[in-house]
């Protein structure tokens, strides 16, 4: 067992976890923060996306002990206009992927603001990349939505950045 501390959604949490416990399971089962979802447990769906020091990661492939003393934000700690936009544009149906979609979108917008390129960025040299629908799609492609609410998600994010 390892005793670690972690700032989760603004408050310091003490965790007593075995090294094999993922950040996802630590959040869900030790801290009762079940808003973060387990879809595949191998980094292939994005449902477990959280923010670590503001960067989006998949919490299923993160060992909790690795994130000791880091600042973790889960959907329970997100307050973003994107949330309202997701509801308004029906950017989900069953909602299982939604926590991850929203955390991912928050992290994605930070990356974009910092000038990070994507696989569809035409001019890699520029730091001012227009966030077109195609850019949003590529950058959000690590979050699967089986209900197919993708166009609603694009609309929600487009509204969120206006």
């Amino acid at each position, binding site marked *: 067992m*390892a005793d670690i501390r972690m700032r989760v959604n603004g408050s310091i949490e003490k965790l007593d976890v*075995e*090294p*094999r416990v*993922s950040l996802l399971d630590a959040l869900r089962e030790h801290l009762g923060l079940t808003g973060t979802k387990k879809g595949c*447990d*191998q*980094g*292939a769906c*994005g449902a477990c*996306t959280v923010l670590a020091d503001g*960067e*989006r*990661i*998949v919490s299923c*492939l*993160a*060992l909790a*002990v*690795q994130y*000791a003393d880091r600042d973790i934000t889960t959907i329970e700690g997100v307050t973003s206009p994107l949330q309202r936009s997701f509801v308004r544009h029906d950017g989900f149906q069953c909602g299982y992927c939604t926590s991850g979609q929203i955390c*991912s979108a928050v*992290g*994605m917008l930070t*990356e974009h603001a*910092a*000038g*990070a*390129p*994507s*696989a569809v*960025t035409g001019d*890699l*040299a520029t*730091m001012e990349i227009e966030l077109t629908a195609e850019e949003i799609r*590529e*950058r*959000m*492609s*690590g*979050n699967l939505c089986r209900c197919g609410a993708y166009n609603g998600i694009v609309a929600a994010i487009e509204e969120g950045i206006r």
Partner: protein
Amino acid sequence: MKDFAYVSAPDVATAVRAITEPGAKFLGGGTNLVDLMRQNVERPDTVVDITRLPLDRVEELPDGRIRIGAMMRNSALAAHRLIRTRYPMLAQALLAGASGQLRNMATVGGNVLQRTRCPYFVDLAARCNKREPGSGCDAIGGFNRNAAIFGASESCVATHPSDMCVALAALDATIELESVRGVRRLPLVGFHALPGDAPQHETAIAADELITAIELPDLPVAARSRYRKVRDRASYAFALVSVAAALEVRDGVVTEARLALGGVASRPWRAHAAERALMGAPATEESFRRAADAELAGAVAQSQNAFKIELARRAVTATLRQLHLPGGAA
């Protein structure tokens, strides 16, 4: 997942000492290792977390070379100005891999050492010489649509899944390794092994060595380069075939060419034969095709992946053609 001890290394000296314990394994971003541990394919006794090592910078050395810290995250490297402008194929290769979240976690060193995505490697009920030496290979004659077309053996037909390494191979990158025994440098080309009769030996790294850095040569031709990936969906999928290429043409004649293929072998496949065929040749479709033919003459298909030979031929030709067009480089 098996129980294991966890050690977080604050510096390289601690890390390389900790790894000398039997059954110890370095843990980077975890995007591959944690998954394999959960599937009981990897079963370390001790995990040495190296993500806090101060190896997360890109430096331009006085001689023009670029030194990339091994703990640099894939996303940070792809976003770095020097990489975007001087080595666009590397930025593109990184951005073509995995997802935004995974790129924020995955380290450069871990990317080099990632394991194959052959389905039998992670299926404990299947035979796999890589996972269990001597057990056999169920991919041969089995589900091998995405198996190797170069360098496979009767023991193993698995491919290396990295996109980044394909660009690094084309760029003649160097890997810096450190252990309690000292520091050494190896070229990336040749770092990954062909399976032969011992597919469990995947790279030239020793059990006690840590990748500390990747170095890129000062390579002007790399500014005219491109990475191109063919896959089953538009994003977030491994390559069927990929191509990293850089091309310099003067007066209609190829004066320099760098070419490597991904998804085709247990290593990023540096296409030396194609490069030789291109040098001094007119920059024409015919030359590009001939170069691709020269490389693929040595390709051998498994039962389900003959298509990859033709696909690789076309991907090479198309990438060179694209690079040669005005504005065709990234």
